């Protein structure tokens, strides 16, 4: 099928027609062909790419499935997502990653890239069959024990070294387990008042510092998941200045929310790593703006209602993110004049695609590129209603927020999977 997005604004600001033929961009310019979709006033971005989600399948299908997660992703403008390994069973074998990969193909709403566990059962003791996962149909390149830290320095060193043979990257959940035993929230003035066990910034920063040095020593690629502290930003900035191969991500919620929200004791704000202080938020925004932090990744973490409708210490860690990520980035980075639309495309599409090695993603919108495109209305404000989310879970901290920028169309491999903000029911076969 051939169709044209007419009068659409490119990230550069230029207004063009984008002609899509099959799964490719045929041309970008003044031509048009086939049906027209009027995109006057709308911005086209390369399809968004998320390097960090939890799709819960296999094992916790009451929270999310690969299909429902793909639907949420498409609604949020993502044409590729990555599924963390902490499922049940853990994605530590070729069998499990191939299952997730196949479910993603069947859903057909975006690319689903399974992330392989670094260690067997996420136990941090023995390396998983990283090579088998890399060679599997899922072609895994990103490995992570996310949810748990690869805390043993020797295991981490070996993992970093080993994945070099197939161009892999270790995505570290930086959390020293001993310094965060039973930790509930950021350790600071608020935790001292609330009597909740503190989660010190140093528990995150100590691991980041160690792993940066390890990555340098073995000359491998390190990715730091969900950076949350000012000190962490400074460590990554230093590492990049030394030429060490490290990349870092920040979540939308850490760009906006602070630990003062925990005063409500509402576990909707319970998340790992925890919400930090305004000082940290400011440092994260600055780090994202100057390129120290490479990407925004959602850490979309669905949980059933009963796991949040309880007292704080009994609640699960995690927040939804896929359907609000773009809006939060616009609110925190574009509206504050730190970002142009090219920057948005960089942190939400081209950089994560590069880190993950997702070859059909994150490419510039030019003739010949894969037709993975997100069309957004930059000025449309919308109100987040958790009941209207496509995710199976409801644990968004942004319920009731009015946010800027709405995803209008999501085009995955030429297929319009979201049109006028709604799933079309079409999928890519």
């Amino acid at each position, binding site marked *: 099928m051939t169709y044209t997005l007419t009068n659409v604004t490119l990230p550069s600001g230029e207004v063009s027609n984008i002609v899509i033929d099959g799964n490719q961009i045929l041309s970008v310019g003044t031509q048009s062909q086939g049906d027209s979709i009027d995109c006057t006033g709308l911005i086209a971005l390369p399809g968004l790419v998320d390097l960090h989600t939890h799709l819960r399948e296999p094992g916790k299908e009451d929270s999310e499935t690969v299909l429902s997660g793909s639907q949420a992703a498409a609604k949020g403008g993502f044409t590729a997502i990555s599924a963390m390994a902490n499922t049940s069973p853990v994605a530590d074998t070729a069998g499990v990653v191939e299952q997730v990969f196949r479910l993603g193909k069947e859903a057909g709403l975006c690319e689903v890239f399974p992330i392989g566990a670094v260690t067997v059962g996420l136990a941090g003791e023995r390396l998983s069959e990283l090579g088998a996962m890399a060679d599997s149909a899922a072609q895994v390149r990103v490995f992570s024990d996310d949810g748990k830290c690869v805390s043993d320095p020797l295991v981490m060193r070996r993992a970093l070294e080993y994945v070099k043979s197939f161009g892999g990257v270790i995505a570290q959940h930086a959390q020293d387990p001993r310094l965060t035993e039973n930790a509930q929230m950021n350790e*600071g003035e608020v935790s001292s008042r*609330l009597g*909740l066990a503190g989660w010190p910034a140093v528990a995150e920063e100590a691991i980041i510092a160690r792993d940066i040095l390890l990555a340098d020593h073995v000359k491998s690629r390190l990715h730091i998941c969900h950076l949350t502290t000012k000190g962490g930003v400074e460590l990554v900035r230093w590492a990049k200045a030394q030429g060490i191969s490290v990349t870092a991500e920040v979540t939308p919620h850490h760009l906006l929310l602070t630990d003062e929200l925990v005063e409500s004791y509402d576990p909707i704000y319970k998340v790992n790593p925890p919400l930090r202080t305004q000082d940290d938020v400011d440092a994260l925004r600055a780090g994202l703006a100057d390129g120290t932090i490479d990407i925004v990744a959602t850490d979309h973490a669905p949980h059933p209602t009963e796991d949040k409708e309880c007292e704080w210490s009994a609640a699960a860690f995690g927040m939804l993110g896929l359907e609000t990520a773009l809006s939060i980035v616009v609110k925190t980075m574009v509206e504050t004049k730190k970002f142009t639309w090219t920057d948005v495309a960089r942190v939400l599409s081209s950089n994560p695609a590069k880190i993950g090695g997702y070859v059909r993603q994150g490419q510039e919108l030019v003739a010949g590129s894969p037709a993975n495109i997100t069309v957004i209305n930059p000025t449309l404000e919308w109100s987040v209603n958790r009941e209207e989310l496509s995710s199976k879970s409801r644990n968004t901290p942004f319920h009731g927020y009015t946010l800027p920028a709405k995803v209008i169309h999501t085009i995955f491999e030429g297929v319009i999977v979201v049109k006028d903000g709604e799933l079309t029911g079409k999928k890519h076969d």
Partner: protein
Amino acid sequence: MKNQLLSINDLSHSDVLSILNTAAELEKITSGANKKLPTLRGRTVVNLFFEDSTRTRISFETAAKRLSADVINFSAKGSSVSKGESLKDTAQTLQAMGADAVVIRHGSSGAAQRLADSGWISATVINAGDGTHEHPTQALLDAFTISKAFPDRKNDFSGVRVAIVGDILHSRVARSNVLLLTKLGAKVTLIAPPTLLPVGVEQWPVDISYDFDAEIENFDVVMMLRIQLERMSNFFFPNEREYSRRYGLNETRLSRMKKSAIVMHPGPMNRGLEISASSADSSRSVIVDQVGNGVVARMAVLYLLLGGAPISEVLS
């Protein structure tokens, strides 16, 4: 006054005075042979205890019964709670049974606020200790005890110097007392090893000291906190002996205290660890008085929060 007591922050200065004055009045009225007032007749108070605490539960139970309320004790042990029932389901069950007040003790900080804010229950919620957050009625009974020890001050504690000594990090008693005693004008000094002070404590409206001996002669009130022995396994201090030597109240320290100074402890005490037997039993100790004051302070709270019939009316 709000119709719940989750934190000392729920109380204005005048609310506190009103509770302390009501407690004094209730103490006077119920000190005779007939200890019972019919002000809360027909009301149901549920003691919802997810943590064992015999003394707090008995204190609330006695307070409610002296006001003629019906009391239901719901303890987590041996109940459906231990079989995995959620706080929500328990709360809704109590709601369906028509509880007017729920006195909740829970091991999780914020559990009382969660219960009150969740919409699961319309009863008045009273926090009887939530994790390491607050224990507001303990602070009220402590303030009432200090008030009785210094009657000339008429509930104005400005210039009164209070030392709170021990495991501040894990103490809900300390958090509530800091808020309440400073609200009444007292100058509070927290004394503990640095490991047992929370990061962020420097923002509290208190003085901090690591040295119990430095200023001991200047305090009017020395409040000792219980040390949980399991703290040792997390390296908060080397061993009992060393803790006791550096932060325990012993005879030497007791003898250096002001003549008028009092010794307090929320109980239960570890005699020989944070407080020596002779200090606990000395004439300065008001530890036993605290227990009795707990009943009247909690009567005052229940009475004011549940809007009982005016005392003058029920007496006539």
